[in-house]
């Protein structure tokens, strides 16, 4: 639906008059690009709140609004809905609630691995246990061992959706709210502007589509990472470490950020002067939190061993060899008290890091998958590929992290996190298309920063998000989720004044500089390609000898676009860090 967007040029006088009409106090916020008229619809929605409403009036409304859209999106189907035999991610999460509530803890990581065996770190297991316990109070049949597999009980769906929403509102949402507050204060952004950014971040379509529609708990992990970043902003290094361990403990994917966390924490111990006690504190608290994370697993294993419960119950004879580090068993006494613990931890690590799988599993918009279109990578030995992936990943993540190490500045955090995560996404091993959420999260947080809602940042953040959603379209359309995909992405694009709904992020106000023209043409090309792809995908069947044609094209375009996003993040990071240029440039940027 096309709508007349508000005309861009309005005399200043009237804007003031408007504010004066409704406001008792006339504290207009004269910073940021949004002074005269809202330059995109989202700003228009919060326009009446300028200088009138306090943050505490606005925040509950924002949270309710964001929650409503999430819940409504959740009315649609989920991954694997009525798709036997294996169903999908929804069944995986439900199954984990089943095994964690029904089985002794030592069997969690080894129970019937063919049916969605648990392959996330322990915090996910504990979270599943908690959700499973609560759900069993409502209806025990939801999580009955074996018989509940593949359940499509509509009430169970509501319960599962509610667990996602509640988990998100307990972790991700508060983390984002606090981060936006701190980051915008750090960047001298007005409160009202930061509220606009908050809505934009919360309405980010990719996380809603994956977590609330397709079904997963990514926002819990992302929330812990955000909390870690926001602790860094507040100089709470120990909390940053704890939150990051929690993120890692929830989903191993958080390793994408590990280098940046490490670089920043180490950098802040080294610069401006070496701070040994801080370093030791961080090291100690990290170790302690890891220990705490594993404690239930270890204690549970010991308890089960004492009660004669094996991790693999049906097995007679000698214990099986370790799945990893086989050499280790020669040095260890398999009858010793500690052996089951070693076995349990190694089994967990083996499940969490599937080294044995290929370079990439499905079609994903990263470098390797795109390269595979040109050169068939399967014919190379996997050792070589692994090494190549490792080198390429390192090459891509070292520059941003070196910058962060030597310049541990707070305002660089989102950019450094984003470029590191992009590097991992593009070049590392075993990437899933949903992993694009990881680089998108810190990149989207840029909206709360200095000039975050100005044209350039908005255009790039918007581009990355819309491209990210687009690369997940094949995943979503497999389970008939075209409608929520279209609604949520178009809504977000509309709210932020992005293509295909508007060109205001590129062509508004004054004559663009040559860099803006360049951005416009590059993005324009990609948006056209995406639109054209949707038309083709919708109208034409791919030729029978190339059934994956549309997905392959999607992957190719996606990988190219994501590479640009990586370069933009890295480039902005270099500029912002003032390593190459001195403040003269900085001044020009924030004029």
């Amino acid at each position: 639906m096309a709508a007349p967007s508000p005309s861009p040029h309005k005399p200043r006088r009237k804007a003031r008059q408007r504010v004066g009409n409704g406001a008792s106090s006339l504290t207009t916020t004269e910073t940021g690009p949004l002074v005269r008229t809202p330059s995109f619809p989202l700003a228009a929605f919060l326009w009446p709140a300028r200088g009138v409403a306090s943050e505490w009036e606005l925040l509950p409304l924002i949270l309710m609004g964001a929650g409503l859209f999430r819940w409504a999106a959740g009315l649609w189907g989920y991954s694997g809905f009525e798709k036997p035999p294996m169903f999908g991610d929804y069944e995986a999460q439900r199954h984990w609630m089943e095994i964690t509530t029904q089985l002794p803890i030592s069997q969690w990581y080894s129970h019937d691995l063919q049916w969605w065996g648990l392959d996330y770190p322990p915090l996910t297991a504990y979270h599943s246990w908690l959700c499973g316990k609560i759900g069993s109070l409502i209806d025990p049949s939801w999580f009955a061992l074996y018989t509940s597999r593949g359940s499509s009980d509509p009430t169970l769906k509501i319960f599962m959706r509610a667990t996602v929403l509640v988990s998100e509102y307990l972790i991700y949402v508060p983390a984002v709210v606090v981060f936006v507050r701190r980051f915008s204060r750090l960047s001298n952004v007005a409160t009202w502007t930061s509220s606009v950014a908050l809505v934009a971040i919360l309405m980010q379509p990719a996380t809603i589509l994956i977590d609330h529609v397709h079904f997963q708990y990514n926002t819990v992990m992302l929330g812990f990472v955000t909390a870690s970043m926001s602790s860094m902003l507040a100089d709470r290094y120990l909390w940053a470490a704890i939150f990051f361990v929690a993120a890692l403990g929830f989903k191993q994917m958080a390793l994408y950020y590990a280098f940046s966390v490490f670089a920043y924490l180490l950098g802040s111990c080294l610069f401006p002067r070496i701070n040994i006690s801080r370093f030791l504190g961080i090291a100690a608290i990290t170790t302690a939190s890891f220990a705490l994370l594993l404690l239930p697993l270890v204690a549970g294993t010991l308890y089960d061993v004492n009660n004669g419960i094996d991790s693999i119950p049906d097995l007679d004879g000698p214990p099986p060899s370790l799945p990893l580090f086989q050499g280790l068993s020669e040095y260890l006494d398999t009858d010793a008290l500690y052996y089951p613990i070693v076995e349990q931890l190694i089994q967990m690590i083996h499940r969490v890091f599937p080294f044995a799988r290929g370079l990439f599993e499905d079609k994903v918009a990263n470098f390797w998958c795109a390269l595979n279109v040109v050169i068939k990578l399967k014919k190379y030995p996997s050792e070589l590929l692994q090494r190549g992936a490792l080198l390429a990943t390192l090459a891509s993540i070292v520059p941003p992290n070196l910058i962060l190490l030597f310049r541990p500045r707070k305002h660089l955090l989102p950019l450094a996190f984003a470029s590191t995560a992009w590097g991992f996404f593009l070049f590392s091993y075993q990437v899933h298309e949903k992993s694009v959420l990881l680089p998108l999260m810190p990149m989207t947080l840029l909206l709360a920063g200095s000039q975050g809602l100005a044209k350039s940042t908005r255009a790039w953040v918007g581009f990355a998000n819309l491209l990210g959603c687009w690369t997940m379209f094949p995943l979503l359309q497999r389970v008939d989720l075209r409608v929520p995909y279209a609604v949520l992405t178009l809504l977000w694009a509309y709210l932020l004044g992005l293509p295909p709904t508007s060109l205001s992020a590129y062509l508004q106000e004054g004559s663009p500089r040559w860099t803006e023209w360049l951005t416009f043409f590059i993005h324009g090309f990609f948006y056209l390609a995406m639109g054209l792809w949707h038309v083709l995908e919708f109208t034409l069947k791919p030729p029978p000898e190339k059934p994956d044609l549309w997905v392959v094209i999607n992957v190719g375009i996606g990988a190219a676009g994501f590479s640009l996003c990586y370069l933009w993040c890295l480039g902005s990071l270099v500029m912002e860090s003032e390593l190459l240029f001195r403040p003269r440039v900085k001044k020009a940027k924030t004029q």
Partner: protein
Amino acid sequence: MAEIYPSLAQCAIVAAAFKILLFPAYKSTDFEVHRNWLAITHSLPLWEWYYEKTSEWTLDYPPFFAYFEWIMSQVANLVDPSMLRVFNLEYDSWETVYFQRFTVIITELLLVYALQMFVDSSRGASKRAAQAAAISILLSPGLLIIDHIHFQYNGCMYGILIASMVLARDRSTLLLSGLTFAALLCMKHIYLYLAPAYFVFLLRTYCLSPKSIFRIQFINCLKLGGGIAAVFGIAFGPFALKGQIPQIMSRLFPFSRGLCHAYWAPNVWAMYSFVDRLLILLAPRIGLPIKTDALQSVTRGLVGDTAFAVLPDITPRVCFALTLLFQAIPLVKLFIQPTWDTFVGAVTLCGYASFLFGWHVHEKAILLVIIPFSLIALKDRRYLSAFRPLAVAGHVSLFPLLFTPAEFPIKTVYTIFWLVLFLMVFDHLAPASSRPRFFLFDRFSTLYITVSIPLIVYCSLVHGIVFGKRYEFLPLMFTSSYSAIGVVGSWVGFMVVYFTS
């Protein structure tokens, strides 16, 4: 002219996105009702529309609505012809759901247009208030619950109502206003409840001279009378030719139904029932006779007819008389002082009277009060303080329409969102009144709004946990009695405001 943000179009777009996400939500039998009407109008000749009864959901709206369904069925034929077969009962392929839900969103554009007319017709300082009121109607939880989840086409028809009310604002479009309202009556006859206000207002401002009520403007009378006759002729003419009017009337006005609808609409009769219920417990002590046959209906309040055990039964005639009486009182003032604001107030009060005293009132009819009231709620703070309990009570009373767990968060969170947002915005925008406010009334309304929170919690959570499936009428009765207090309170409050301003 200064733009006011956000614009109605912007709100409509975001609201439409939310409504599309609600496509898979619960839908009531009204969905099947409207599918059946699509099928009837598409596959049968005009003369059989009002006789067809394969489905129990026979066509019981006036002809314009049937024509409206016929137009939509032309498009439906392209989407999924199977939905247009009369015998295809309970058919809901995803194409059918998408199509029918989408028609609700599309036809609601009429409401957006009418609201824009309303904003444009407001001048000066009140423009911001008009914009806020318009957005509050557009985003109304009532319309969301009834139209986009439960399923009906109220958005479109309230659009026509608002358009006709806005047309009445300007002397040059009075005739058009009357004709629009006549067309609306031929679409859904529930608006007959508001017709007395229109009649008096048009009579006074259009048919009689503004200077003296004894000088009749005959040309205007002819224009209006002829126009209305023409509108009704187009609607009912084809059926009148075949002598089908009595059949249509029996469909439109089924007086065989009970006093209270399946759910208890929060009106005077709900309070009456509640008192009756209490008297059953008290009657033995104070020696009142109890009609034993009425006690048998244990499911009272849930289904069908309501019989009273202690209090005298209510006949349709009593309802009718009370409704007319309480409609007539504000109309006297409208006749004496025919300004637009009084007119809107009179329409609102006609809505109130028919909702509170009407026969077989459905709780959905509360929109008949809320929507006209919204147009003048921001006139000053006294209006607002009468509007506040109505906004809470009216929307809370709609909650029992949706009883499925998936829609529970939507109906409650959306309503709370709307109430918080608009009561806050209205509070900023409503100018102080020139007359003193009623101290007690304000306190009462704050207390009243606070009570809604434990009530919602009890009805939706606590009752189910404590009693399970037993005493299912209790939450309904509480919701209904609570809402009735709010509606009656706001009615009394508004009566006072209406007559003193």
